[in-house]
């Protein structure tokens, strides 16, 4: 088992305004290959900034990032290599889709990897099929719904087969149907062994989905641990303005009232809690 973290951040500092204020303020983190990591924290806590650093779009003014144990190489060649491994799906698809044609849009990334046109065509077709884009593949991107744009923006990255996929608030501005769809796609990614970093405000989803939670506060990692550890730490939650997931709240109150046995392992989703109640 390879224990080198796939991604490691060491004491990062990053500022948008010439060091007057720091969006990343001594940010350190290690992420192991194949993990599902949820990034949580208030707006402006530095999630998107960190993601842009991971992809080499921003270069931290201090501190070092490592990919598979190698420090980031910010030369043109180094960046291209890094970006073929670390893909990022932006929060607003309108900031990501540059072409009016879905097909052109999706083919862009894979062509940049230098594969042959034939192979690129195959890959594009596969990802269109896989992400259920076929019904609207011939529409112009400006005529797509928000959810469809999201699907295309995910396809943009998937077609490049990166090792790490970063999703910046993928569920923002999506209807429930598309949220479910995005979640399904994300689950498929982790099954394929891709490391997924996702920022989200949905504590219930994070509790059920994530292997690890990173709580961000003012450009620093406030807490990094398993979902149950993080979501039972009320102090940390209060500091980042997060609610405890509903399942945990309910479990706790049922235990307090003596209805459930508090020695049961903490439930991570409604089904588990339901089975506890059924087996009483």
């Amino acid at each position, binding site marked *: 088992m390879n224990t080198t973290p796939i991604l490691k951040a060491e004491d990062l500092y990053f500022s948008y305004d010439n060091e007057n204020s720091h969006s990343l303020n001594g940010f350190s983190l290690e992420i192991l290959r194949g993990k599902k990591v949820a990034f949580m924290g208030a707006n402006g806590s530095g999630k998107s900034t960190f993601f*842009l650093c991971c*992809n080499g*779009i921003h270069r931290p003014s201090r501190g070092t990032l490592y990919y598979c144990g190698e420090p980031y190489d910010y030369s*043109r060649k180094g960046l*291209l290599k890094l*970006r*073929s491994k670390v*893909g*990022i799906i*932006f929060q*607003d698809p*309108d*900031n*990501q*889709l*540059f*072409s*009016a*044609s879905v*097909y*052109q*849009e999706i*083919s*862009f*990334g894979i*062509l*940049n*990897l230098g594969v042959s*046109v034939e192979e*690129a*065509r195959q890959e*594009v077709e596969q990802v269109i099929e896989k992400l259920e884009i076929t019904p609207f593949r*011939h*529409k*112009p*991107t*400006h*005529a797509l719904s928000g959810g469809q744009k999201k699907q295309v923006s995910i396809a*943009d*990255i998937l077609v*490049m087969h990166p090792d790490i996929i970063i999703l910046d608030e993928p569920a923002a501005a999506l209807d429930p149907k598309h949220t479910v769809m995005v979640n399904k796609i994300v689950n498929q990614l982790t099954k394929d062994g891709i490391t997924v970093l996702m920022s989200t405000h949905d504590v219930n989803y994070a509790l059920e989905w994530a292997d690890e939670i990173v709580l961000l506060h003012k450009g620093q990692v406030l807490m990094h641990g398993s979902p149950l550890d993080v979501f039972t730490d009320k102090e940390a939650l209060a500091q980042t303005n997060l609610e405890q997931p509903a399942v945990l709240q309910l479990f706790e109150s049922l235990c307090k009232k003596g209805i459930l046995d508090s020695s049961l392992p903490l439930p991570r989703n409604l089904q588990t809690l339901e089975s506890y109640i059924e087996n009483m």
Partner: protein
Amino acid sequence: MITIDMLCYYSRLRYANAMEKFTYSVLTLLFCVVSRSLAMALLVLAVNGILTVRKGGIPFYRYWRYMMIPLAFLIISTLAVIVNISRTPLDAFAFQIGNYYLTGSYASLYKGVQMILTALASVSCLYFLSFNTPMTDILSVLKKIHCPDLLVELMLLIYRYIFLLLDISFSISTSQDSRLGNRNLKTSMKSFGAMASVLLIRAMAKSGALYDSMEARCYDGRLKVLDEQHPPKSKEIFWIVIFEGLLLIFTIWSKLK
């Protein structure tokens, strides 16, 4: 322009090979302009009308309305050719105004009508292309005929941005309306100024974000994209060759005459 954009995505000729459509409309346009023949203009108008409305499935009233736009403009501008002010009446028509006549000759009348129809026929060629071909397909044709890459890439981005910025400006003006921003001329002007400045700032921010996202996908200065392939059909090529051949013969004949 936005309606045209919407229509071309529903056209039944949309998936015909773009190069075919491009070649057809450019050649036909050329022959129209070179020959300046009345008969040819009528023929081209009829063929383009049938192709766009019957084959392409563009609603007739839409097509008609779009044809009317240049017509009004053409009639006004050819009036100068047709109508003369002179002391002596000419053969076609003459209205007396005091000592002068508002008058025109058959020759100039013929010339005026010929000009109008030639111009309309040429416009119909361009309409045929734009009603039946999405912009991205036209751009890929431009790339194939070796238009400079920089130009084509710019057009691709601009085309996408037109809609992004339109969206933003619509939502801003709606929000201004909802706060009585357009109550009178003064507030309207103020609102418009505010919108323009916000739009500029947003456009800058958007282009920065877009560039980041392209960089994140290994953008290296060349905008490489693939287009969907709709191979040309031999039957269509056959008819285009026949039609353009006819026009060519007709053009040569009308010049020799």
